[in-house]
């Protein structure tokens, strides 16, 4: 029975994703693009171009970190919609360290850049955590608002403290030199150590969370505060740990994103909506560390394909948002149908 149920859930998820793809194609057709070319670009581009392959790998690593954070907090019933803001702070902190701590010797500075980014993401979620635990404030609203603040803060830093001295007009930062980039595993193949790093972290978190009593504690807090209190679980402790982990993971994602893909910040890097993808991946992966990994890989693949498709069909890349939105609803509806069938 268990096996059949899994099959059904997978089938429903596949249907949901197909629905999202169809929505994307309808938009392409409406905007006057070639549907056939769009479809093949969507599915093949991530495999067939070097930049496609590279981006799938990097995005997988970043999505995985962010989505694990979202998923861990979700176990405790907390919605971190602010992974985008935490990612931005992480990226900014990489350059704060690189510019203002330049006196440190190379290996120390390298590690400091990563640690400071992680710390930045963690600090960015401290306010929502305190407001939630201490004042019962809705963390969805607070983390969302902090995205706006993070974007403004990022623009401020980009226009001043971390701006490249040679940037005139359109602001950008200096480019990280090769020794501060995360190297490829094999010479010319565009796969950096960021990917195995994310996977190792996933395995670590799997053993720290999925295989310990903490999972049960978090789930209990997430399902019913009353039960948790009755069982003697410290609700604030669970909330603080899961929220801070979520912020730190997204901040770390920012470091990996800069050090193994962008290597510099300009205004363009602030406008991704990866925080929402992290939420979708966490939900599709059913809040489970391994499931989230598979979902992150899939969304890395499909978003790269969709962006290439938009370019190819001369449609704004915002079509990707429509596809994501439809997929989200489709996946929920699938879960609903699956549960209804099990209930009958």
């Amino acid at each position: 029975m268990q096996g059949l149920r899994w099959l059904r859930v997978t089938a429903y998820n596949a249907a949901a994703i197909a629905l999202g793809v169809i929505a994307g194609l309808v938009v392409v057709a409406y905007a006057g693009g070639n549907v056939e070319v769009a479809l093949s670009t969507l599915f093949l581009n991530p495999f067939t171009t070097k930049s496609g392959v590279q981006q799938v790998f990097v995005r997988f690593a970043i999505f995985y970190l962010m989505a694990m954070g979202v998923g861990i907090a979700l176990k405790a019933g907390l919605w971190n919609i602010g992974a985008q803001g935490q990612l931005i702070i992480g990226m900014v902190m990489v350059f704060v360290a690189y510019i203002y701590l330049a006196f440190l010797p190379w290996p120390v500075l390298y590690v400091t850049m990563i640690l400071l980014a992680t710390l930045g993401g963690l600090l960015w979620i401290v306010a929502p955590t305190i407001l939630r635990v201490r004042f019962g404030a809705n963390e969805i609203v607070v983390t969302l608002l902090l995205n706006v603040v993070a974007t403004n803060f990022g623009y401020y830093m980009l226009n001043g403290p971390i701006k490249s001295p040679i940037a005139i007009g359109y602001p950008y930062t200096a480019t990280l030199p090769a020794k501060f980039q995360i190297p490829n595993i094999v010479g010319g193949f565009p796969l950096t150590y960021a990917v195995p790093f994310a996977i190792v972290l996933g395995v670590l978190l799997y053993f720290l969370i999925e295989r310990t009593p903490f999972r049960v504690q978090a789930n209990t807090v997430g399902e019913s505060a009353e039960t948790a209190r009755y069982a003697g679980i410290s609700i604030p402790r669970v909330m603080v740990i899961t929220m801070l982990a979520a912020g730190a993971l997204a901040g770390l994602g920012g470091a990996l994103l800069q050090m193994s893909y962008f290597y510099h910040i300009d205004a363009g890097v602030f406008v991704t909506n990866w925080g929402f993808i992290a939420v979708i991946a966490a939900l599709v992966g059913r809040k489970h560390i391994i499931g989230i990994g598979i979902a992150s890989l899939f969304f890395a693949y499909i978003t790269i394909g969709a962006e290439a498709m938009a370019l190819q069909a001369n449609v704004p890349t915002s079509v990707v948002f429509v596809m994501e939105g439809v997929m989200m609803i489709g996946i929920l509806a699938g879960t609903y149908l699956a549960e209804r069938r099990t209930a009958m």
Partner: protein
Amino acid sequence: MTVLLSDVLIGIFSTTLRLSPLYLFAGLGEIVTEKSGVANMGIEGIMLMSLFTTYAVDLTTGNPWLAILAALGVAGLIGVIFALLAVQMRLDQIVVGLAIYLSGLGLSFVLFNTFAGTRALPAFVNIPNVHIPYLSDIPVVGQILFQQNILVYFALALVVLVSYFLGRTSLGLRVRAVGENPKAADNMGVNVLKVRFLAVIFGAVLAGLAGAYFNVGFLQNFQFDIISGRGFIALAMIYFANWGPYKTLFAALSFNIVYATQSEFVSIASTAIAGSSQLFNMLPYVFLLALIPILGRKARPPKYLLKPYKKG
């Protein structure tokens, strides 16, 4: 250059009032929705879609009122979709809301891109401000209070109307009942799903009016992500206002005063603070967050908020 204090004050307070309908329409609508036990996190997406609709219909027909009407229709339709998914099918309200936001964000820009294309566009026809006779001639105060867009006055009136509706009418009582205790309401013969459906659609239509107002009373334009989080801010305001219409008015006005003051300051002192304007842009949001420990402490959401209801 000398700056007249009266000009600065007029600038700050008239911007404060001029921006209020945006938060009031969206916020008051969402209060009614949330009082019924349903949270629509997607109002930002609804605002974007209705803003685009206003833009397209206005440019096509040259009639801003028709544009608003079309925007309300689109918003209501999205409300129906939300209600079907979140109320009827009982899907997770937060996820459906975020999905509506994402779809609206993407779709509004794709539609705009196709609509605008490369052709020359006619001028946008907006709704002119009202000049209330005699009162608008009063110096300073008249310029602030009595020369606003008609929808500003409507938004202020709506604060009273929604408060009256929720507190004093039987339908308002039913809305609150299905949010506080749907089971008991059901037992008393209230059709829980129907009331929630209506509350969701009411909230969506008002979010649509917020988006439409932002265009006819303010922007007369469209851009990607033009609402830029203001729908989410309206959601936050309700929370600070403890789901009260008058407190929402207070939250909206105080947020707007901080916003207008900083933007006035940034434009006056632009050379002195060169490059730091974004830091000042953060102020209104930080101000709003700082209100939580003060105002949000006593916030008590409707008891069955976010909890789907199943008969039987």
